[in-house]
């Protein structure tokens, strides 16, 4: 069972890309906290309900923190890209990005930020998520920011870049 956030699957994808002649870079955007560390990301079906609940809560909180700070999120993504360009194995300036679900939105955020990537692929990716009110639970789930609340946030102006983006959508 995959964990939330960066996990072995993403690392395997990076290795897969390396085998194809690219440089794969699996990036971690979750901040660890005392209540939700990197170790806590790995859950299995054998884990008890309390651990699974804690895992879910921690992951959603980490993800929500990115949505609440879009400028920081984009700055972090750009930081990773710049870090990659400094690596000797990377042809600086030549980059793409892939991502599933929330990772798909991360790909789009690269494009919106004007980052120098030439291609992006999102798999069943989110487009533009609103944050959650983690303290407002309805029907067992946190409530989304309203559109008005969302627009009142410190959003980042989007920039258009020359980039080919493929968005795959699941019809299931």
């Amino acid at each position, binding site marked *: *069972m*995959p964990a*939330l956030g*960066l996990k*072995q*699957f993403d*690392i*395997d*994808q*990076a*290795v*897969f*890309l*390396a*085998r194809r*002649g*690219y*440089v*794969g*870079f*699996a*990036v*971690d*955007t979750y*901040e660890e906290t005392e209540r939700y560390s*990197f*170790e*806590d990301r*790995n859950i*299995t079906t*054998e884990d008890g309900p309390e651990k*699974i*609940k804690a895992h*879910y809560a921690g*992951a959603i909180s*980490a993800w929500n923190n990115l949505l609440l700070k879009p400028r*920081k999120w984009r700055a*972090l993504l750009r*930081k*990773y*890209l710049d*870090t*990659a360009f400094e*690596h000797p*194995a*990377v*042809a*600086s300036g*030549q*980059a*793409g*990005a*892939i*991502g*599933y*679900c*929330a990772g*798909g939105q991360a*790909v789009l955020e690269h494009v919106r930020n004007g980052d120098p*990537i030439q291609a992006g692929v999102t798999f069943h990716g989110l487009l533009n998520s609103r944050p959650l009110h983690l303290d407002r639970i309805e029907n067992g789930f946190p409530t989304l920011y309203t559109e008005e609340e969302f627009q009142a946030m410190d959003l980042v102006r989007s920039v258009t870049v020359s980039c080919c983006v493929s968005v795959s959508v699941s019809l299931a």
Partner: protein
Amino acid sequence: MVKLTWCAISSRHNAAQNRAVLEIRKWATEGDGESVCEGKNTMRCGGLTPKFVACSGCWSNVGDRRKDGFTTSSTICGERYCPRVLECETHYVGNIYEQRFCCIINSLTSPQMSSAASAAHPDVVLENISVTLDGYTYKHSWIAYLRNQPPAPVILVHPNYAGESSRLLFYPLK
């Protein structure tokens, strides 16, 4: 100066802290191939994982090398979800170092390289990358590339936040 081609690890359970501890050992591969394990370092592990029970107490060996105390149970320890090393002083296995400890990355028993895909391709190098922003250091990113190849385009892999685990969201804990 020794050329480190492989590194070996062992794992044990720190009951007091309820977490795994890895011992990193340096193999000197000069000579007749009867490697000597020099020095050791203790590193904090990524934590308890589903395979931890299988990994605890077993000694991972690398390649075909054997030594007393080691088993050939790398297939056990090489499985996914084994303890992971988070902190390494250096991680360029295969390079030449002088009196420095190496990390398990790129060894066949490295959990981070243990997938069937990577195990069959020893030329894939996997490095841990840390990025700092606004005073916080993100420590768990990994970059993979082929050794001794010209610079290549990079593809960033962005993780999901749900994936299959979304089953836990919609079918929670019955």
